[in-house]
């Protein structure tokens, strides 16, 4: 088993909790993991990414080479496009389509959408909206994790356990809300692949 993921978003959006959950799940499964994060200056509203590598055999590099990622998982549509050179030709982009506009020269949405459409295997929808409807406005990242789960070589139950262990301290209500968001995202992608 080997899945290489580029996690992307804007500083403060919560991509690192996705990494933490997958990390907890990987540890439980006895998988190898390497996950390079960004700390410091870039966390202040800048673009952030994390290279997350999961494998059943030892992993050499902390960084994913060009054309090496199985998945780009992004909380923001323009940020998903930033890392396209890292994606394998047969890889998948799973991204939120709700833009995070904190720069003056943010591109026109139709340009972002049309590039996404031309990007091969893509799951793109408004995850903020689905999170708000199904769980809580703060759970977009769990919708994203759910939507990406079918492409990660790991049982969904194991990822759900990861969610429980990471949010457990915050109480059962928060755990349930995050699980609900996760399952909503999962269901969206399952329906899409079925077609």
């Amino acid at each position, binding site marked *: 088993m080997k899945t290489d993921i580029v996690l992307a978003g804007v500083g403060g959006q919560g991509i690192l909790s996705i990494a933490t959950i997958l990390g907890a799940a990987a540890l439980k499964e006895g998988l190898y993991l390497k996950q*390079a994060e960004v700390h*410091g200056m870039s966390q202040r509203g*800048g673009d952030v990414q994390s290279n997350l590598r999961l494998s059943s055999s030892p992993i050499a590099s902390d*960084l994913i080479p060009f054309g090496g990622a199985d998945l780009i998982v992004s909380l923001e549509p323009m940020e998903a*496009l930033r890392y396209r050179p890292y994606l394998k030709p047969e890889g998948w982009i799973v991204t939120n389509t709700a833009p995070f506009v904190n*720069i003056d020269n943010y*591109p026109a949405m139709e340009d972002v959408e049309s590039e996404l459409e031309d990007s091969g295997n893509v799951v793109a929808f408004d995850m903020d909206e689905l999170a708000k409807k199904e769980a809580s406005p703060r759970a977009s990242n769990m919708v994203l994790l759910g939507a990406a789960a079918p492409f990660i070589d790991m049982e969904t139950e194991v990822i759900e356990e990861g969610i429980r262990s990471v949010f457990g301290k915050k109480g059962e209500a928060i755990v349930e809300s995050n699980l609900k968001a996760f399952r909503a995202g999962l269901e969206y992608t399952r329906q899409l692949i079925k077609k």
Partner: protein
Amino acid sequence: MKTKRLLLGDEALALGAIEAGLSGAYAYPGTPSTEILEYVQSHPLTSQRNIHSHWSSNEKTAMEEALGMSFCGKRAIVSMKHVGLNVAADPFVNSGMTGANGGLIVISADDPSMHSSQNEQDSRFYADFAMLPTLEPSNQQEAYDMAGYAFSLSERHAIPVLLRMVTRLSHSRANVETAGEAQPQNEFHYPANPRQWVLMPAVSRERNRRLVEDFKLFEKESEKSPFNFYKEGSDKSLGIVVSGIAYNYLNEIYPDGCPYPVVKISQYPLPVDMINRLFDECEAVMVIEEGQPFIEKKLRGDLNRTGRIFGKLTGEIVRTGELTPDEVKKGILNAMAERSGLVATEPKGESKVVMPRPPALCQGCGHRDVYHALNDVLKEFESPRVFGDIGCYTLGFLSPFNAIDSCVDMGASITMAKGAADAGQHPSVAIIGDSTFTHSGMTGLLDAVNEDSDMMVIISDNLTTGMTGGQDSQGTGKLEEICLGLGVKPEHLRTIDSLPKNHDEMMRVFREEIEHKGLSVVISRRECIQTARRHAAAKAKKA
């Protein structure tokens, strides 16, 4: 009991030190080294064993405090970012002369690619001229294992050890197997050679001769180090010297094994015999190292190797920025072309619409209000200059503020504003954060006090060390007293709250103090929005 855990490189190193009987950890926050002391602070053994883990005022004080703990026979670590080693350079270099008593590890975390730094300086050069052994872990497991190893090495030779980290190791998580139990701490005991700690010329001359002799022993340690090794390869047309994290990239691009013989280096001084063997057996040698071409220069210089040496100096490997698997592949292809068995990977599918998204000050951050008011006031003057400093407020350089004219090193805002005022600059304004002020601003302010320099210092006090994630700031609650104690005139020490509603009031205070002919200090204060949120959440949880 051995346990497997997911740890950042920084955390693995900190845990390794704790489990090896650490008694004191010292540091000033700095990306990418901050998590080392934070991890020590969070570990249950720290309170159980009374391990020192308070933040220091700067890297120099931290280094000296750690040296004092080592003097008393206890194991200590001191951690900093690479430019922090500049601040600590005086005690660091002289610690080679005093030597260590209790094991002493100096951790310097380099930041190639400058993710959050001013330069790409390579800490290995410092250890070289201080004549100290250096360790450079290539992965998280080595970072953990090296802590205990470094303490032993340090105590075996009564010498501090530099441990060089880099961003990609500090801030990358991986599975680490840990001992799961801690060795006892050292007993309090004084150095066997007390004379050596008094660096008067007569003592130092004697000690210097001894250090030069000891350096040969450090070389022997490197030859037999478990972290350095010679790996056979079938194709002798090239030999590769690879150090630290670059070793992982070499393994990544040759998943079935590198065809060339490899010398992997994670301990310095260089294992000369191992390297000479590589030169003897191979037609050419390539050096792959993260950072500046340290090993490459050593090969051409100290080792006096001639012949074909490929690397950063000769241009096969990219000279600036951090290495990646792709850059290492490109480097080998540049030297060996298709003989390397590698196929170039060019980035494909680059977006045509993506824009850069630089970091920005948070919404609701007090620094914003300071810059808004300052910019509005400075419009009234012909040629104002604002000397900035290191912290979140450095982001005031970017749009929409475009408010600062310099950012050099910790504390330089005050001293550069003074030098500019000396040259006739008016208004000459310094802007500095509270933590940076107590780190390196206070001494410069004393210079300005002594000459009553015509300048205004704004201390933008957010009650924390913000950029690195909100560590305690050493001057919190004491800034007015510090300024008055240094001799700032009470009538020109002003305090305001940095709030949008105080915009006009802030403008008035800034204007008055710029117009005052002489030194003024304005403390504009508002808690960092990030730490304020955390404090509110913690309070709500308690209630």
